[in-house]
């Protein structure tokens, strides 16, 4: 029985005067790849921010790896990829990684590994500002991987990537999960849902459904997960 990596109870978050999450409950098992899916603006990023502990919450409990979300002990154990690439555009790939590696106290060897993982090996000298959007987000992803965290919270890591690299990254995510890490990955592209062990379907600040892709297909009778999601929305609003 895998233990629970993320446990959220009755989470309420208000952003910009608007309630974004209203009494959300969920659990994520450790060692899994969980997809967080839903239309843009449904509260995925806010939920991820709450899990990482950078979001001010109005009410509720967010427990991560047995600690309160955002506690000091978790800063080394949780890796976070923000939706917009949060790396220094005026530094090279290598300089960015060396800075974050110094904060996490990891060595040159690990930098080489993560650069390889995101497919940017041999380009360490290149300044991030001169990279394409997809390449920048890969640098940002490499930074999140640096500390070999137990929990990886990745906000749309595959946006703007070509299909080959996208498939490679999903392969990497599964390797990480097999090695014991827990991954929570958001996407608004439904064709990535089938890559996940478990799916969290969100809409308008609430969790509509938590199930495996197979369960979702069975329950809705739809083979296509995108259509299955629409069916769930239809059931919920009926």
């Amino acid at each position, binding site marked *: 029985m895998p233990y629970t990596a993320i446990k959220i109870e009755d989470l309420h978050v*208000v952003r910009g005067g608007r309630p974004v999450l209203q009494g959300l409950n969920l659990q994520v098992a450790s060692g899994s790849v969980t997809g967080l899916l839903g239309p843009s603006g449904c509260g995925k990023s806010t939920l991820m921010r709450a899990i990482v502990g950078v979001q001010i919450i109005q009410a509720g409990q967010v427990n991560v790896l047995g600690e309160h979300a955002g506690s000091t002990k978790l800063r080394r154990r949780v890796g976070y990829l923000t939706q917009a690439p949060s790396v220094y555009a005026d530094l090279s790939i290598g300089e960015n990684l060396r800075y974050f590696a110094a904060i996490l106290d990891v060595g040159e060897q690990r930098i080489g590994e993560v650069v390889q993982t995101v497919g940017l090996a041999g380009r360490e000298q290149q300044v991030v500002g001169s990279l394409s959007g997809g390449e920048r987000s890969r640098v940002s992803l490499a930074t999140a991987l640096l500390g070999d965290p137990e929990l990886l919270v990745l906000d749309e890591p595959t946006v703007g990537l070509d299909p080959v690299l996208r498939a490679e990254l999903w392969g990497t995510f599964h390797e990480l999960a097999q090695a014991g890490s827990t991954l929570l990955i958001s996407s608004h592209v439904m064709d990535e849902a089938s890559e996940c062990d478990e799916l969290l379907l969100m809409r308008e600040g609430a969790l509509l459904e938590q199930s495996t892709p197979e369960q979702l297909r069975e329950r809705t009778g739809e083979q296509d997960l995108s259509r299955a999601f629409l069916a769930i929305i239809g059931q919920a609003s009926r």
Partner: protein
Amino acid sequence: MSPRITLATARRVLWQIRRDPRTIALLLVVPVALLTLMRYVFDGQPGTFQAIGAPMCGLFPFIIMFLVTSIAMLRERTSGTLERLMSLPLAKADLLAGYGIAFGVLAALQALVVCLVGFLLLGLHAPHGAWLIGLLAVGNAVLGMALGLFVSAFARTEFQAVQFMPAIIFPQLLLCGLFVDRHEMAGVLYGFSSALPLTYAYDALARATHPGALGGRVALDVAVIVGATLIALTLGALTLRRRTA
């Protein structure tokens, strides 16, 4: 707080500036150009050039580091890198001290160049030694940096941030005694200027560029500069939030 992370942060900020040779050129050339301009504006009044130009050598780093830091920190806030840093095992003090060291190094370089030109080429006098002006310049630069870090929290855009320079620095320059003796100002302004940190920064520089004993007043000035820097850094640390709305 860890020396490893503090130094890595300082190195990172310096790396960022190194990528931007034009900024480095501006940092080093502009103060020298302005000082040279001043020298020839006051061509017929060498006394006035000494009274204004010599303290200016120690004030340029204050003004420029305020501006550069407020923009650098604003970028850190708006680009998402601050959010990432706040989710990592980095103490706020590491970030503040890292910035302090990096901009302190730049300020020292800037002060060195402007003092070399001012005291060797343009004929300014430093009766207590140009090194004292240089040291005060670095202290003032760190004060300017601390204020810049703090006010960056109140700007949402770079357009807003650049306007904190005229809003926060110009009044202090007018009131510090550089252009008009503070005793000749309206009483209210005299009182007000006593509460502004730049008044003390200028006072120390004015004494350091005047012949005659330095006196205990310079020690008081330095204490105020250090105190104001610590207060601004503390306020700045309060604006660095681990959690945001």
